[in-house]
């Protein structure tokens, strides 16, 4: 038996015209601090403000260069709003978005942010202009940004994502399948030579067999061009497969963030634990017996005070109803962070530090 040398992967070559690295490898590509976005709900005859949806409330996280951060959570948890804030599709109410050391709105203009950060949406059809050919759609952004040879760039990327340019360049979005359309959207995002790609449920609408093809493509592109991904999905299996770290959101807040293996082996927040046990079992001899949570996620209008999960939590104590838990590392300096009074010995929760979750 011969011993094969472990192959060193070829070094990634950044996309042509990618913005140069400014902060060095230790500078996170993206830092988000205390991001907040409230939507007013209007109603009545005069259209007065009736309530506020606290869509994203005090969200902070970092995305390191070259990693994939998975974001999971249920509908209304603010994961898509976060994504839209990150590429400037929505204006933030407050908080900071720092891309490679530059503050959005300060040193960094929206135009420059869009060069560096691009997005792929869930609905592959709605996110393409039906009147533009595939080639024009992909070349559009590059043309607006004044990059050289937008058409040549588009054709090269079409080839890279597996759509033969000669066959597909002049077709319209309705003439191709869902999987192919999502490849077009990926090519369009890459045409701007971004360094960070935000994938918002990008594979969720695809059939399982096609989803696997697109996931393979995303993994290849990341390796080849040294890209950084934020991958938003409700499918935990997909997020586990593609991510390095996972961030869990509940009603507009981050409840847990950890490297994927850590969170997979032990979930520190009771909500994360419930979310993981709600995954259908794949073993017919060992099916789920009890639903981990009762009821639906509450409405993000007027979320509960204190810990927002306390209305559905099994371990709720009086402190949870009044005091908002801070997101903090489980062990000093550790990477696994959770926002739960159970892990804070000084919180006054009667079960704090008792390891009730395992």
């Amino acid at each position, binding site marked *: 038996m011969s011993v094969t040398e472990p192959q060193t992967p070829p070094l990634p070559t950044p996309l042509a015209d990618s913005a140069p690295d400014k902060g060095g490898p230790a500078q996170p590509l993206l830092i988000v601090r205390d991001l907040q976005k409230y939507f007013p709900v209007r109603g009545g005859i005069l259209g007065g403000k009736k309530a506020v949806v606290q869509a994203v409330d005090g969200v902070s996280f970092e995305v390191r260069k070259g990693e994939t951060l998975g974001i999971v959570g249920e509908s209304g948890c603010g994961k898509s709003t976060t994504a839209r804030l990150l590429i400037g599709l929505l204006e933030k109410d407050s908080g900071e978005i720092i891309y490679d050391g530059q503050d959005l709105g300060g040193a960094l203009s929206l135009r420059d942010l869009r060069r560096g950060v691009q997005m792929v949406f869930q609905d592959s059809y709605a996110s393409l202009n039906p009147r533009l050919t595939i080639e024009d759609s992909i070349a559009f952004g590059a043309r607006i940004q004044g990059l050289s040879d937008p058409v040549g760039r588009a054709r090269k990327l079409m080839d890279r994502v597996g759509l033969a340019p000669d066959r597909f360049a002049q077709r319209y979005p309705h003439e191709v399948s869902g999987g192919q359309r999502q490849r077009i959207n990926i090519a369009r995002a890459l045409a701007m030579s971004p360094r960070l790609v935000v994938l918002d449920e990008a594979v969720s609408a695809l*059939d399982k067999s096609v*989803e*696997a093809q697109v996931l*393979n493509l995303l993994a290849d592109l990341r390796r080849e061009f040294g890209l950084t991904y934020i991958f938003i999905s*409700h499918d935990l299996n997909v997020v586990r497969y593609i991510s390095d770290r996972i961030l869990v959101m509940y009603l507009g807040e981050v409840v847990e963030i950890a490297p994927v293996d850590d969170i997979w082996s032990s979930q520190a927040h009771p909500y994360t634990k419930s979310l993981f046990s709600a995954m*259908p079992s794949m073993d*017919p001899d060992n099916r*789920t*017996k009890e639903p981990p949570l009762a009821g*639906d996620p509450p409405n993000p209008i007027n979320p509960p005070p204190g810990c927002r999960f306390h209305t559905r939590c099994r371990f709720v104590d009086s402190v949870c109803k009044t005091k908002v838990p801070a997101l903090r590392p489980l062990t000093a300096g550790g990477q696994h962070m959770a926002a739960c009074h159970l892990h804070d010995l000084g919180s006054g929760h009667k079960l704090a530090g008792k390891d009730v979750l395992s």
Partner: protein
Amino acid sequence: MTTNLVDIRNLSVRFTGARTVHAINDLTLTLQQGETLALLGESGSGKSVTLKTLLRLLPPKRTQIDGAIEVNGTDVLTLSGRKLQAYRGEEVSMVFQEPGLALDPVYTVGDQIAEAVMRHKRISKVEAISTALDMLRRVRIPSPERRLKNYPHELSGGMLQRVMIALALACRPRLLLADEPTTALDATVQIQILLLLRDLQKEFGMGVIFVTHDIGVAVEVSERIAVMYAGQIVEEGTTREIIKDPRHPYTRGLLAANLHDAARGARLNAIPGAPPALETRPDACSFAPRCPLAEDRCRAALPPVHVPNARRRVACIHANAPLAVG
């Protein structure tokens, strides 16, 4: 004479019009009383069309149906008028993917359930409302007396789906058809509805055909699985057989694409290509263009159906071969 609740023989469904689509091709399927069968397949595989054919919901002018369907001894394809109305709701009823669209927004949920019961059972409104209340209780809706008077927009997605199930079961059908009833729901709500359906099936003893594209969901609710591809059933067996010993290359591909045991970062064994358009009736194995094991024989004729045991079948020439690597 058979004891089957549902007996579908050589069913073919073709849509005509600007473009012909052979949606179902020679489908044979049986379901016994009290059994839960999951129809598993991707979009366009014909699983929803099968359910709609069972309820005769397809537009008659543009649909050509061949074959035979019997439900509890009744020939479904010849029903019409009052008999068809009685069949829908009393014998068979259906739960849809979007409960928000399936319920009428201008009536309270109590009235909607009561209307269905009054129509079929010919009882007074007061009795019908009490049946509705009982049904809301059985689908475990908290404070059912209050919910009875709610309009659909006042309820959350999970509650609406419970109401939908209550409505479908109000007349105690022998057969419940469920068309992706949990796909639009959040994960923590989905599992509640799946377990509820499992409990209600036991309680009412009805047969259930559950359409889904998610293998995990199929495992949670069903005891049997039929895998559909291009309007045909390519493999059928108990849930345990399909999960632990899949024989058809398509079933194996689907299981791998579920990613539940995929190594992180490893390349996925994706099925290449896309499903066929079904503009012509398949005269060879429909999966052959995407199949890693395809041979000339596969492209020449329809694959033989292997029947390893009484209620297991695999439509593949490789079905008897030892499991292929990967």
